[in-house]
């Protein structure tokens, strides 16, 4: 782990990082790009799906999924939706301002073990933010994977994240993308309309169940229905990976907020398999 404790530092030590760039992704979601002031910190030993804790003195700490891949080490990127007091303060910052980071925490998607497999990446709403890390990892190491399907559901065309990037990746043949919106209020949406599960018929005939791994991230309500579709495709239970959200304060199994039964999402999660979901009560 790279940002984490180095010699002489304690487990809660934060590292200052400078905002290099910001961009509005949707009305309330913004892209942030950070660089550590200490240039010797190089982010490469993390997995897509892991998260970091951002600290703003006077505001507090909050947990965010890392949305850049470990294959791109010069900077670290996040996607943030403005929903609470912390993100409100974060949105007021300007390029060049400092935030304090610690992490990466949790257990992410073990991409190296997925070499040679087909991937079905299912994203809903903000789920695209952690999955962007997976997509960019695939882009950088395309030769390691076989077919890659990307299914994305958004509320409306304006709510879809990374639209241009995903279409560009699809045009270059890196992924096969299928996009949908719940409701097309603009009348100009060229793709599918309906919830994300209605995209599955488009890929069903090409899925080879025994060599496919599914990666899911989205709002809590989405998991149940997506898992049903994946089980219909006969994807093995331990090859359905999903990243879950819980309240976290410490990131290291001390504060107790993310406990699900005896598991701490911050240590054993946020990535779980469907097999875990079946055996750990209350997971989804």
């Amino acid at each position, binding site marked *: 782990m790279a940002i984490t404790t180095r010699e002489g530092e*304690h*487990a*809660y*030590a934060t590292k200052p990082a400078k905002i290099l760039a910001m961009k509005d992704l949707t009305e309330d979601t913004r892209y942030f790009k950070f660089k550590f002031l200490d240039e010797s910190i190089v982010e490469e030993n993390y997995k897509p799906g892991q998260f970091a804790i951002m600290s703003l*003195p*006077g*505001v*507090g*700490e*909050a947990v965010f999924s890392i949305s850049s891949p470990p294959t791109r080490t010069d900077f670290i990127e996040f996607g943030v*939706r403005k*929903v*609470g007091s*912390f*993100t409100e303060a974060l949105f007021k910052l300007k390029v060049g301002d400092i935030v*304090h980071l610690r992490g990466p925490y949790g257990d992410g998607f073990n991409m190296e073990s997925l070499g040679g497999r087909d991937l079905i990446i299912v994203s809903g709403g903000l789920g695209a933010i952690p999955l962007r890390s997976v997509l960019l990892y695939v882009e950088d190491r395309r030769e390691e994977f076989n077919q890659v399907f990307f299914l994305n559901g958004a509320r409306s065309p304006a709510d879809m994240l990374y639209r241009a990037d995903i279409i560009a990746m699809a045009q270059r043949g890196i992924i096969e993308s299928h996009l949908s919106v719940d409701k097309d209020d603009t009348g100009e949406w060229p793709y599918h309309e309906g919830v994300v599960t209605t995209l599955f018929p488009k890929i069903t005939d090409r899925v080879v169940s025994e060599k496919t791994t599914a990666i899911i991230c989205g709002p*809590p309500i989405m998991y149940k229905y997506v898992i049903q579709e994946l089980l219909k495709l006969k994807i093995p239970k331990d090859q359905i990976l999903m990243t879950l*959200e*819980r*309240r976290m*304060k*410490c990131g*290291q*199994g*001390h*504060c*107790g*907020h993310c*406990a699900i*039964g*005896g*598991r701490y999402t911050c*240590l054993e999660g946020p990535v779980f398999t469907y097999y875990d979901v079946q055996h750990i*009560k*209350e997971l989804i």
Partner: protein
Amino acid sequence: MCQKFTQISTFLKILQISKILELNSKLLYYISLKFSIFRRYPYRLPYKYNFKNSLDMKTYKMSKDRFPEFIEQIKTKGQLYGPVKGNGKYSFEKIEKFEDLDFDYQRTVIGPKKFLTPPRYQTLRYDKSGQTDVFVSDETQIVIGVHPCDIHGINILDRLFLGNIKDPYYEKRRNNLIIIGHSCLPDENCVCKSTGTDMVEDGFDLFFTELGEHYLVWVGSDKGLSIAIEAEDMLTEEISEDEIQEYVRWQQRRSEMFKSEIPSFKYLADIIHLHYDSKVWEQFGEKCLSCGICSIVCPTCNCFNVEDRISMNTEDGFRERILDSCTLPYYSMVAGDHDFRPDRTSRLKLYYTHKLKEYIGRWGQPSCVGCGRCITYCPVGINVLTVSTALYEEVCEKPEACE
């Protein structure tokens, strides 16, 4: 002195023999226990094994008239805290003189966890120029009169905060804390016999067992040994056969004094697991006030929230940790107001399943130490005894048939 020498030489002999036999150190420890007259615990839990401590497992005797003198001596080592009665309740308070101490108590309102994870403490200070971590000073804190259940509570907190990733704030406080235990007699709310925490073998520096006109003094750590060596003129190693008999009788008498018992505590985790959708949770959830008192008083509840505070001048501020409780509303609420545990039933279920079942999987032991605080303080009678009895009776309609 001569006796000490024989003990050590016996031990060295065992060490040599075991090296020949290539026994591991744990086995060696069990052999050494066989040679010890006093086994204060029916079994020793293997995960916190410390070989060095077993060499220090010394026992002394102290006459009760010398005890005030001992207190005076120990006060010179740091700030002394001990059980004090005030407002009809006991609590660990600063001790100025020996007369303040009152060892005739069952439980304090808040256990010694307040010295390790205080209900509210600062972790970070900041102003416009930057931020600095806040750590406690190096002052030694000594807490005397801690009962076996509370020492077990500290051991459980140690595992959580120091076992995997070390919490620097806890670690500093723990290293500065000297724990001097004291024997106790149970009342009707004590269930430590059921939880197997009525005796303690490690986690303390010194432990005083009150036997008539004298104390048996157990040494549990290097720190404790150095205190004992300094107080050598008040202690004697000569413990007679009669006194050993007296100790055994006292133990038996104490063991018979327990009035409350958690039914089948050993199988409780299995019952919770097999009967996960039990109606019991809803029944108690209906009654629960979500007040959080159970977490405030529980010696192993440590969940905390982190909040930033800015001072009135808006120039500086601090970050603090505040004791939180999983029974409080919004405990599991994430940004965007999605609450994973919106009802009292699910939060109460988390509280009890985490304590009684899930802790076993993670740390090898449930995190209930049977201190009886929830039994004493829950205003609506939801406590480890009523919850586990209800769970047990639900699966076992005729309890006598299950015995």
